[in-house]
Protein backbone atom coordinates (compact mmCIF):
# COMPACT_ATOMS: atom_id res chain seq x y z
CA UNK A 1 0.00 0.00 0.00
CA UNK A 2 1.22 3.44 -0.87
CA UNK A 3 2.22 5.61 2.07
CA UNK A 4 -0.07 8.24 0.63
CA UNK A 5 -3.07 5.96 0.48
CA UNK A 6 -4.71 8.18 3.08
CA UNK A 7 -8.22 8.30 1.71
CA UNK A 8 -8.35 4.54 1.82
CA UNK A 9 -7.30 4.55 5.46
CA UNK A 10 -9.52 7.39 6.54
CA UNK A 11 -12.67 6.59 4.65
CA UNK A 12 -14.62 3.37 4.17
CA UNK A 13 -15.42 1.82 0.84
CA UNK A 14 -12.36 2.55 -1.27
CA UNK A 15 -10.26 -0.34 0.00
CA UNK A 16 -6.58 -0.32 -0.77
CA UNK A 17 -4.79 -1.22 -3.95
CA UNK A 18 -1.82 -3.51 -3.49
CA UNK A 19 0.27 -3.73 -6.63
CA UNK A 20 2.64 -6.69 -6.18
CA UNK A 21 6.28 -5.54 -6.16
CA UNK A 22 7.18 -7.64 -9.19
CA UNK A 23 4.37 -6.10 -11.20
CA UNK A 24 5.05 -2.46 -10.43
CA UNK A 25 5.49 -0.43 -13.63
CA UNK A 26 7.96 2.51 -13.67
CA UNK A 27 6.24 5.79 -12.70
CA UNK A 28 4.57 7.17 -15.81
CA UNK A 29 6.07 4.21 -17.70
CA UNK A 30 9.26 6.26 -18.08
CA UNK A 31 12.24 3.97 -18.56
CA UNK A 32 15.97 4.50 -18.97
CA UNK A 33 17.29 5.04 -22.50
CA UNK A 34 18.97 4.35 -24.87
CA UNK A 35 18.01 0.82 -25.71
CA UNK A 36 21.55 -0.40 -24.97
CA UNK A 37 20.76 -0.18 -21.28
CA UNK A 38 17.07 -1.02 -21.58
CA UNK A 39 16.94 -4.34 -19.73
CA UNK A 40 13.17 -4.50 -20.23
CA UNK A 41 13.54 -4.89 -23.96
CA UNK A 42 16.40 -7.22 -24.83
CA UNK A 43 16.16 -8.15 -28.47
CA UNK A 44 19.01 -10.60 -29.08
CA UNK A 45 16.53 -13.38 -29.69
CA UNK A 46 15.35 -11.68 -32.86
CA UNK A 47 18.68 -12.74 -34.33
CA UNK A 48 19.15 -15.54 -36.85
CA UNK A 49 22.62 -14.40 -37.91
CA UNK A 50 25.14 -12.25 -36.11
CA UNK A 51 27.67 -9.79 -37.57
CA UNK A 52 31.24 -10.98 -37.12
CA UNK A 53 34.07 -8.50 -37.50
CA UNK A 54 37.50 -9.17 -38.91
CA UNK A 55 39.78 -7.01 -36.77
CA UNK A 56 42.55 -7.04 -39.40
CA UNK A 57 40.33 -5.74 -42.17
CA UNK A 58 38.34 -3.22 -40.14
CA UNK A 59 39.49 0.37 -40.83
CA UNK A 60 37.49 1.97 -37.96
CA UNK A 61 35.53 4.02 -40.47
CA UNK A 62 32.64 3.80 -37.96
CA UNK A 63 29.94 3.32 -40.61
CA UNK A 64 28.57 0.38 -38.59
CA UNK A 65 28.50 2.55 -35.47
CA UNK A 66 26.55 5.22 -37.31
CA UNK A 67 24.17 2.87 -39.08
CA UNK A 68 23.10 0.59 -36.24
CA UNK A 69 19.51 1.47 -35.27
CA UNK A 70 20.01 0.03 -31.79
CA UNK A 71 23.42 1.43 -30.89
CA UNK A 72 24.94 -2.06 -30.81
CA UNK A 73 28.35 -1.00 -32.09
CA UNK A 74 30.13 0.95 -29.38
CA UNK A 75 33.38 2.68 -30.26
CA UNK A 76 35.97 2.44 -27.48
CA UNK A 77 38.18 5.42 -28.10
CA UNK A 78 40.89 4.46 -25.60
CA UNK A 79 41.86 1.19 -27.36
CA UNK A 80 40.47 2.09 -30.81
CA UNK A 81 38.10 -0.88 -31.01
CA UNK A 82 34.47 -1.46 -31.77
CA UNK A 83 32.54 -3.49 -29.23
CA UNK A 84 29.47 -5.45 -30.29
CA UNK A 85 26.46 -5.35 -27.91
CA UNK A 86 25.20 -8.89 -28.36
CA UNK A 87 22.29 -8.69 -25.92
CA UNK A 88 20.47 -6.20 -28.11
CA UNK A 89 21.66 -6.87 -31.68
CA UNK A 90 18.65 -8.03 -33.73
CA UNK A 91 20.78 -9.35 -36.57
CA UNK A 92 19.29 -6.87 -39.04
CA UNK A 93 22.60 -6.70 -40.94
CA UNK A 94 22.37 -2.98 -41.67
CA UNK A 95 25.95 -2.69 -40.40
CA UNK A 96 27.10 -5.32 -42.88
CA UNK A 97 25.35 -3.51 -45.72
CA UNK A 98 27.03 -0.24 -44.72
CA UNK A 99 30.51 -1.68 -44.14
CA UNK A 100 33.04 -0.09 -46.49
CA UNK A 101 35.56 -2.94 -46.57
CA UNK A 102 34.92 -6.25 -48.27
CA UNK A 103 34.82 -9.04 -45.69
CA UNK A 104 35.40 -6.88 -42.64
CA UNK A 105 31.90 -7.61 -41.41
CA UNK A 106 30.15 -10.87 -42.33
CA UNK A 107 26.95 -12.60 -41.24
CA UNK A 108 27.39 -15.92 -39.45
CA UNK A 109 24.55 -18.26 -38.39
CA UNK A 110 23.74 -17.71 -34.73
CA UNK A 111 23.46 -21.47 -34.23
CA UNK A 112 27.20 -21.79 -34.91
CA UNK A 113 27.90 -20.04 -31.62
CA UNK A 114 27.45 -21.24 -28.08
CA UNK A 115 25.43 -18.74 -26.08
CA UNK A 116 25.37 -15.04 -26.86
CA UNK A 117 21.61 -14.78 -26.90
CA UNK A 118 19.57 -13.71 -23.86
CA UNK A 119 17.04 -16.50 -23.45
CA UNK A 120 13.63 -15.12 -22.54
CA UNK A 121 10.46 -16.78 -21.36
CA UNK A 122 8.32 -14.66 -23.64
CA UNK A 123 8.98 -13.22 -27.08
CA UNK A 124 10.05 -9.85 -25.67
Amino acid sequence: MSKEDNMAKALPGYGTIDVPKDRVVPFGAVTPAPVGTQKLFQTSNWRVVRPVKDEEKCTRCLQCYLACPDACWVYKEEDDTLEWVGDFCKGCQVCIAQCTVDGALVAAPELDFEGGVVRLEKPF
Partner: protein
Amino acid sequence: MAKVHEITVWARGVLQDKEGRDVINIFAKAAQAEGKHAQAFDNYEDLPDRVLVTVRKYVRLSDEEITHKYVYTNDKPEVVVICEATIVKGIDVLRGMEPGGTLIINTNRSIDDMLKLLPNANLLATIATVDADAITGVRTVDFSGSEGGVDTTGIGKGIAAPIVGAVAKVTGLIKKESLAKIVSDVSGMERGYNEVKIKHFKPAVAELVGAAAGSKTKR
Protein backbone atom coordinates in the same frame (compact mmCIF):
# COMPACT_ATOMS: atom_id res chain seq x y z
CA MET B 1 -13.83 -32.36 -19.49
CA ALA B 2 -12.12 -34.08 -22.32
CA LYS B 3 -8.40 -33.71 -22.81
CA VAL B 4 -7.41 -30.63 -24.77
CA HIS B 5 -4.24 -31.04 -26.82
CA GLU B 6 -2.29 -27.82 -26.91
CA ILE B 7 0.18 -27.20 -29.73
CA THR B 8 2.32 -24.07 -29.72
CA VAL B 9 4.06 -22.96 -32.90
CA TRP B 10 6.99 -20.53 -32.78
CA ALA B 11 7.90 -18.55 -35.89
CA ARG B 12 9.66 -15.33 -36.91
CA GLY B 13 7.80 -12.05 -37.44
CA VAL B 14 6.94 -11.04 -41.03
CA LEU B 15 9.24 -13.57 -42.75
CA GLN B 16 7.44 -16.57 -41.29
CA ASP B 17 4.29 -15.04 -39.89
CA LYS B 18 2.12 -16.47 -42.65
CA GLU B 19 3.81 -19.90 -42.62
CA GLY B 20 3.51 -20.15 -38.85
CA ARG B 21 -0.15 -19.24 -39.04
CA ASP B 22 -0.66 -21.74 -41.87
CA VAL B 23 0.60 -24.51 -39.59
CA ILE B 24 -2.09 -23.80 -37.01
CA ASN B 25 -4.84 -23.19 -39.53
CA ILE B 26 -4.11 -26.40 -41.43
CA PHE B 27 -4.19 -28.34 -38.20
CA ALA B 28 -7.42 -26.81 -36.95
CA LYS B 29 -9.19 -27.22 -40.29
CA ALA B 30 -8.06 -30.82 -40.62
CA ALA B 31 -9.16 -31.58 -37.07
CA GLN B 32 -12.54 -29.99 -37.69
CA ALA B 33 -12.89 -32.10 -40.84
CA GLU B 34 -12.26 -35.13 -38.65
CA GLY B 35 -15.12 -34.03 -36.38
CA LYS B 36 -12.94 -32.67 -33.59
CA HIS B 37 -13.25 -29.36 -31.82
CA ALA B 38 -10.35 -27.10 -32.69
CA GLN B 39 -9.07 -23.59 -32.13
CA ALA B 40 -6.28 -21.79 -33.98
CA PHE B 41 -5.12 -18.26 -33.18
CA ASP B 42 -2.13 -15.93 -33.16
CA ASN B 43 -0.78 -14.57 -29.90
CA TYR B 44 -1.99 -10.98 -29.98
CA GLU B 45 0.65 -9.78 -27.52
CA ASP B 46 3.46 -10.64 -29.95
CA LEU B 47 4.61 -8.25 -32.63
CA PRO B 48 4.17 -10.03 -35.97
CA ASP B 49 4.76 -6.83 -37.93
CA ARG B 50 8.40 -6.66 -36.81
CA VAL B 51 10.90 -8.59 -38.87
CA LEU B 52 12.37 -11.63 -37.09
CA VAL B 53 10.73 -11.06 -33.70
CA THR B 54 9.58 -14.37 -32.24
CA VAL B 55 5.84 -14.92 -32.55
CA ARG B 56 3.55 -17.58 -31.13
CA LYS B 57 0.66 -19.38 -32.79
CA TYR B 58 -1.61 -21.75 -30.98
CA VAL B 59 -3.71 -24.81 -31.80
CA ARG B 60 -6.05 -26.59 -29.43
CA LEU B 61 -7.67 -29.89 -30.31
CA SER B 62 -10.30 -31.72 -28.32
CA ASP B 63 -13.06 -34.28 -28.68
CA GLU B 64 -15.41 -32.01 -26.81
CA GLU B 65 -16.11 -28.32 -26.90
CA ILE B 66 -13.15 -26.24 -25.65
CA THR B 67 -14.41 -24.23 -22.70
CA HIS B 68 -11.28 -22.20 -22.03
CA LYS B 69 -11.34 -20.70 -25.48
CA TYR B 70 -10.54 -17.21 -24.22
CA VAL B 71 -7.59 -18.24 -22.09
CA TYR B 72 -5.00 -16.22 -23.88
CA THR B 73 -2.03 -18.57 -24.20
CA ASN B 74 -1.24 -22.25 -24.31
CA ASP B 75 0.16 -22.51 -20.79
CA LYS B 76 0.90 -26.23 -20.98
CA PRO B 77 1.83 -27.06 -24.54
CA GLU B 78 1.99 -30.78 -25.21
CA VAL B 79 3.60 -30.23 -28.59
CA VAL B 80 5.92 -27.37 -29.53
CA VAL B 81 6.76 -26.66 -33.16
CA ILE B 82 9.71 -24.42 -34.06
CA CYS B 83 9.63 -22.95 -37.57
CA GLU B 84 13.14 -21.45 -37.32
CA ALA B 85 15.76 -23.28 -35.27
CA THR B 86 17.59 -20.26 -33.79
CA ILE B 87 14.48 -19.57 -31.72
CA VAL B 88 15.47 -22.34 -29.29
CA LYS B 89 18.52 -20.25 -28.32
CA GLY B 90 16.49 -17.17 -27.53
CA ILE B 91 13.35 -18.55 -25.92
CA ASP B 92 12.56 -21.13 -23.28
CA VAL B 93 10.40 -22.92 -25.80
CA LEU B 94 9.50 -25.80 -23.47
CA ARG B 95 8.19 -23.43 -20.80
CA GLY B 96 5.06 -24.88 -19.26
CA MET B 97 5.42 -28.26 -20.92
CA GLU B 98 4.63 -31.22 -18.67
CA PRO B 99 7.05 -34.17 -18.75
CA GLY B 100 6.51 -36.37 -21.79
CA GLY B 101 6.08 -33.63 -24.39
CA THR B 102 7.07 -33.38 -28.01
CA LEU B 103 9.31 -30.88 -29.82
CA ILE B 104 9.50 -30.59 -33.60
CA ILE B 105 12.04 -28.26 -35.22
CA ASN B 106 12.44 -27.10 -38.81
CA THR B 107 16.22 -27.42 -39.29
CA ASN B 108 18.91 -29.18 -41.26
CA ARG B 109 20.98 -29.62 -38.13
CA SER B 110 21.08 -32.83 -36.14
CA ILE B 111 18.79 -33.74 -33.28
CA ASP B 112 21.81 -33.99 -30.96
CA ASP B 113 22.91 -30.46 -31.90
CA MET B 114 19.46 -29.23 -31.04
CA LEU B 115 19.38 -31.08 -27.72
CA LYS B 116 22.54 -29.22 -26.66
CA LEU B 117 20.60 -25.96 -26.91
CA LEU B 118 17.76 -27.15 -24.69
CA PRO B 119 18.47 -26.81 -20.96
CA ASN B 120 15.20 -28.55 -20.04
CA ALA B 121 15.23 -31.28 -22.68
CA ASN B 122 14.41 -33.78 -19.94
CA LEU B 123 10.77 -32.74 -20.34
CA LEU B 124 10.71 -34.35 -23.76
CA ALA B 125 9.54 -37.83 -24.67
CA THR B 126 10.04 -37.09 -28.35
CA ILE B 127 12.14 -34.73 -30.43
CA ALA B 128 12.02 -34.52 -34.19
CA THR B 129 13.57 -32.46 -36.97
CA VAL B 130 12.37 -31.79 -40.47
CA ASP B 131 14.25 -29.76 -43.07
CA ALA B 132 11.23 -27.95 -44.43
CA ASP B 133 13.27 -25.24 -46.11
CA ALA B 134 15.13 -27.85 -48.13
CA ILE B 135 11.88 -29.59 -49.08
CA THR B 136 10.04 -26.56 -50.48
CA GLY B 137 12.29 -23.49 -50.13
CA VAL B 138 9.14 -21.38 -50.14
CA ARG B 139 8.25 -18.91 -47.42
CA THR B 140 5.05 -17.14 -48.30
CA VAL B 141 4.94 -13.54 -47.09
CA ASP B 142 1.36 -12.32 -47.14
CA PHE B 143 -0.53 -10.25 -44.62
CA SER B 144 -4.12 -10.84 -45.66
CA GLY B 145 -4.64 -13.32 -42.83
CA SER B 146 -2.75 -11.40 -40.15
CA GLU B 147 -4.28 -9.38 -37.29
CA GLY B 148 -7.43 -11.50 -37.38
CA GLY B 149 -8.04 -10.99 -41.09
CA VAL B 150 -9.22 -13.59 -43.57
CA ASP B 151 -6.48 -15.40 -45.47
CA THR B 152 -7.19 -14.92 -49.17
CA THR B 153 -4.13 -16.59 -50.67
CA GLY B 154 -4.65 -20.22 -49.74
CA ILE B 155 -2.75 -22.14 -47.10
CA GLY B 156 0.07 -24.64 -47.06
CA LYS B 157 2.06 -23.44 -50.10
CA GLY B 158 5.41 -23.12 -48.33
CA ILE B 159 7.32 -24.62 -45.41
CA ALA B 160 4.08 -25.02 -43.44
CA ALA B 161 3.23 -28.05 -45.62
CA PRO B 162 6.24 -30.23 -44.71
CA ILE B 163 6.04 -29.02 -41.11
CA VAL B 164 2.42 -30.13 -40.65
CA GLY B 165 3.26 -33.42 -42.36
CA ALA B 166 6.03 -33.95 -39.84
CA VAL B 167 3.83 -32.98 -36.89
CA ALA B 168 1.10 -35.40 -38.04
CA LYS B 169 3.59 -38.24 -38.25
CA VAL B 170 5.27 -37.52 -34.91
CA THR B 171 2.16 -36.84 -32.82
CA GLY B 172 -0.50 -38.93 -34.52
CA LEU B 173 -2.98 -36.23 -33.57
CA ILE B 174 -4.23 -35.88 -37.14
CA LYS B 175 -4.45 -38.06 -40.25
CA LYS B 176 -2.23 -37.37 -43.22
CA GLU B 177 -5.27 -37.77 -45.49
CA SER B 178 -7.08 -34.95 -43.70
CA LEU B 179 -4.09 -32.65 -44.19
CA ALA B 180 -3.92 -33.52 -47.89
CA LYS B 181 -7.39 -32.07 -48.42
CA ILE B 182 -6.28 -28.73 -47.03
CA VAL B 183 -2.65 -27.97 -47.92
CA SER B 184 -1.84 -26.50 -51.32
CA ASP B 185 1.49 -28.34 -51.56
CA VAL B 186 0.43 -31.95 -50.94
CA SER B 187 3.71 -33.49 -52.05
CA GLY B 188 5.66 -31.15 -49.74
CA MET B 189 3.41 -32.21 -46.87
CA GLU B 190 4.00 -35.89 -47.69
CA ARG B 191 7.76 -35.39 -47.90
CA GLY B 192 7.68 -33.80 -44.47
CA TYR B 193 5.64 -36.74 -43.22
CA ASN B 194 8.11 -39.23 -44.67
CA GLU B 195 11.42 -37.44 -44.10
CA VAL B 196 10.97 -36.29 -40.49
CA LYS B 197 13.71 -37.60 -38.19
CA ILE B 198 12.43 -38.75 -34.83
CA LYS B 199 14.12 -39.60 -31.55
CA HIS B 200 12.15 -41.08 -28.66
CA PHE B 201 13.31 -41.12 -25.08
CA LYS B 202 12.33 -43.91 -22.73
CA PRO B 203 9.11 -42.51 -21.28
CA ALA B 204 9.83 -43.84 -17.80
CA VAL B 205 13.17 -42.05 -17.61
CA ALA B 206 11.87 -38.85 -19.09
CA GLU B 207 8.97 -38.77 -16.68
CA LEU B 208 11.16 -39.52 -13.68
CA VAL B 209 13.61 -36.77 -14.53
CA GLY B 210 10.80 -34.41 -15.39
CA ALA B 211 8.92 -35.05 -12.18
CA ALA B 212 12.09 -34.41 -10.18
CA ALA B 213 12.73 -31.18 -12.06
CA GLY B 214 9.17 -30.13 -11.45
CA SER B 215 7.14 -27.78 -13.54
CA LYS B 216 7.35 -24.13 -12.55
CA THR B 217 5.08 -22.54 -15.05
CA LYS B 218 2.37 -20.78 -13.14
CA ARG B 219 2.47 -17.04 -13.49
